[in-house]
């Protein structure tokens, strides 16, 4: 039995900002169902009273002095931009043209 449906896959793809074609959606229904069923193994495990492990190290806050350090200059920061005007990153228009 499929654990998740094509609608689930579409919904999750939307959250993940992925556009999947029909073939990919079909494939992922099967693959994700299979993998998630395997993960259901965890339900066998009694975890009551166990604190979730968020991180490996027992460190909480790491502070540094509040001083300005070196950072990238504008030219370097923009050097990998797919599109820029030399000052800003350019993206397609966000608001509809009126």
């Amino acid at each position, binding site marked *: 039995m499929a654990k998740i449906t094509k609608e689930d896959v579409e919904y999750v793809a939307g959250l993940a*900002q992925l556009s999947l074609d029909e073939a990919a959606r079909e494939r992922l229904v099967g693959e994700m169902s299979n993998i998630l069923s395997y993960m259901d193994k965890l339900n066998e495990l009694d975890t009551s009273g166990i604190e979730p492990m968020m991180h490996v190290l027992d460190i909480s806050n790491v502070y540094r002095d509040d001083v300005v350090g070196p950072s990238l200059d504008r030219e370097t920061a923009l050097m990998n931009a797919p599109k820029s005007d030399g000052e800003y990153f350019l993206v397609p228009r966000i608001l509809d043209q009126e």
Partner: protein
Amino acid sequence: MTGTLYRLTAHELCDAYKSGKTTPSQAVSSCLDRINAVDSKLKAFVDVWKDYAVDQAQASDDRWAKGAPKGPLDGVPIGLKDVLCTKQGFTTCCSKILRGYRSPFDATVVERLLNAGAIPVGKLNMDEFAMGSSTENSSVQVTRNPWNLRCVPGGSSGGSAAAVAADECAITLGSDTGGSIRQPAACCGCVGLKPTYGRVSRYGLVAFASSLDQIGPFTKDAHDMALVMNVISGRDPHDATSADVPVPDYTKALRADVSDLTVGLPKEYFTDALGQEMREKIEAAVKVFEKSGAKVIEVSLPHTDYAVAVYYIVCTAEASANLARFDGVRYGYRAPNAVSVEDMYHRSKSEGYGPEVQRRIMLGTYVLSSGYYDAYYLKAQKARALIRRDFTNAFQKCDVILTPTAPTPAFEIGAKTADPLEMYLSDIYTISVNLAGIPGLSIPCGLTASKLPAGLQILGKPFGEETLLRAAYTYEQKRGFTLGQPPIS
């Protein structure tokens, strides 16, 4: 001597530089010749920095000639997994989404190796964004195993492992999120170390799963491993999770003595999942420890069976968050002809990421999504605590744990690509180590009947790298064989 200089370890090279028998220029040119001769078949390198390496080697020649090398790795040819940011060349994670990306900075490990005089000769192939166990998920090429070109080198750091095993350079760096250093090291027959989480700075390592990722070296022996760890370990202000724990001189751990050590064998690792031939190799390796005076006991890691499920929840969840940054705005691939910003995000990601990366982003997004967070992600984090506790308990009874690194030797190209879950299960012996954050080292423990390397995994307590290196060094000295050269030429 230039002819086979490429075969030497880093410490042998430096001895030869010191005594004037050879120079870094000769060694680098020997490695470049070797790359030229074998890499069209092996496909370990995605970029070779010939001119850069030759220039760097000349500068190193001068330092050695003046008797003032920068350190014990000065003039040693190294290779870097393409997940590490380098100002030189490109940094692409072997993904289409980062094709042509030039990092404005060097990863801390790269900076430290450069400051020590090591000479990077290029970038190495990997599964896209380090997601895979065979290097077949690279968008660039499929790396071959130098012992058998029909087989995978393991992954995700398959290029790094193959390059050292085929003597293309003395040392490489890789990254290990669930076994991506140790499993390919085992498959290719070299030494690979995943340090304790926090031992080595992750600054400049393109993030896959931030609570699991660690950078580590591939070397030809334990001695070189100690030399690299001396250079790359330690606190880095650029990585808040790098631990403020003093770095010992790891070469002091290179003593052939394990008589004071208790070795634990986890009973859950020696089940039917382990092939008979691999089991025999591991048992023979355990005997070497026993004969060297170590006490061998059985230990239990009762939650082993849950590790793969926990891992693929935690790592996909973290990956889905980390990879959200590749949106086509500031760097990386941007799909042409997008009609809106939203459309640009969607198209750039869908066209830029390969199938395994998309699958993991989907799984990670699902397990974090509203309604499933508690059932999957939170449950996995609780189970992760139990897995770590297993190791804490086991290490109260023993100093190191010995296991196989992988259940089988390297498999054939294409053998596991049809079923992602089967591919995930090739990491059963390595994954728990990342979940617990402890160090793990893989060292060759023989060749199978089909002439493929087998790997022994040595696990230690947090920041117990010295003990791991001592155990590895002792085993190397006492095992009574060498793997020899892989047949590639």
